[in-house]
């Protein structure tokens, strides 16, 4: 997942334009998720994450999570 700084009412399209990415690079179903004032997260392909400028976006791990049942 990558984090961008955009105004509170920004859309996924705004984020993709800022980062120079196409619609195919991002998960449209996930969209643009607000995390904190001015900070949003979108889910992109590994390849797109490598392409984006680190000055415009921060790349974060999106690890698999699992239930804490005992086995």
């Amino acid at each position, binding site marked *: 997942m990558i984090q961008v700084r955009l105004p509170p009412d920004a859309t996924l399209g705004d984020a993709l334009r800022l980062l120079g990415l196409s619609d195919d690079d991002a998960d449209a*179903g*996930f969209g643009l998720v607000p*995390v904190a004032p001015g900070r949003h*997260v979108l889910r992109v392909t590994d390849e797109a994450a490598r392409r984006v400028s680190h000055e415009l976006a921060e790349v*974060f791990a*999106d*690890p698999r999570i*699992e239930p804490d049942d005992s*086995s």
Partner: protein
Amino acid sequence: MRVMIQLRPAPDVVASVMDTGAASAAGDVAGDLPGVAIDEAFEPVAVPRPVSLSPYQRMQFSMAPEDASVLVRGEIADGDLATRSALLTSSVREVAGVFADPHIQPHPVCGGDGPVGDWQEVRRLLHAEELWSAGHDGEGVTVAIVDGGVNADHVAARIGHEVTLDAQRSWSPPGVPARPGRHPVDHGTMCAFDVLLAAPKATLLDIPVLLSRREGGSLADGLLSDALAAYAHLDRVLRAMPAESRALVVSNSWGLFSPDMDFPPGHPGNYSDNPAHPFNVIVGSLEGTGADILFSAGNCGRECPDGRCGYPDRTIVGANSHPAVLSVGGVDTRGERVGYSSQGPGRLSERKPDLCAYTHFAGSGAVGPADTGTSASCPVAAGVVAAVRTRRSAADLSPAQLRTLLHRTADDRSTVGFDYDYGFGVIDPPAVLAALARQNRTRAA
């Protein structure tokens, strides 16, 4: 140090120890052993002598008074131990040996073990009736089950009363069919059942993030980004509540087992150790808005870790160790920590787990004979939090204040105060009620 001392007294003394009709005093058998405080409460025990007639025969033992020895129990000062032991065996003819008498403990409950107690017993241990009669039954409190989907019919049939589930405010990740409360019976159903043990009238939200099917995922896992999107939804749910009566409890029985899919600690994109990771940020933000967030501590306890555990140490990772959440370890219904319950310190916050709640009991019937793991103890604690919230909104008692109250009132286990096995102790609803009553009296005065 406590020791066992093996003595070879005269045969008539050994015979009197073996005589079940006559009680022997340790002092009479041992006499005065210099430097040893004999434990008079411990009745001397006769021990047979191994005798071999030939190296080709099976070992045999003799309890004849002239062969057998006698064990007594005592204590030697730690500083004197080596010298005193050597002196005893060399200078006191009757002393045949000095042996350690270490503290022994029952083997803790592990993953494959059968249930310990049942859900009715958990309700008794939580003093649920007492909570309810004081008006703390969860009515009007929303509890989000962030897990693998809830089957409300199963929960209702099992627990024996109606279950309130709000489909409108429930949420599913993209790609997961929205059928709140109608998912297959599994882990999320167990969590819902366990919440209702203390808070039967709570309103459940079904947030099945673990059902997300992304490339490479198994049947019961999701991606952290799905949980992030769920928290953004819960933020909207919470903000839609009137500020003066906000009451949202978020129960999370999941976590990250292995560092394989994470950036290493120190990398700016890391999750496990990084408070700046977006999920850790949104957890702090949601708590700041008034949500009580609970996470399972994890199942990587030293005695019997889950096979998936990949962290060599500090196994409470990421949001499960967030300073703004309640990290919940597990104890069985005897109050003993289960061997798989992860121990602190945590990675984002050192003093983890916060406390323990009950697990490994026959409960929901949703996942097998027992509701196990810190997966079960987390929603049990979430139910207690929801019960407290019935009469105290987040405006009245902030999530941080409530965590402090739970710490302060927990039934302390192990060492005095906080420890990395039990946190502050086992959650103790009557003590919470008493503390709240004291607060009310102070306010009224």
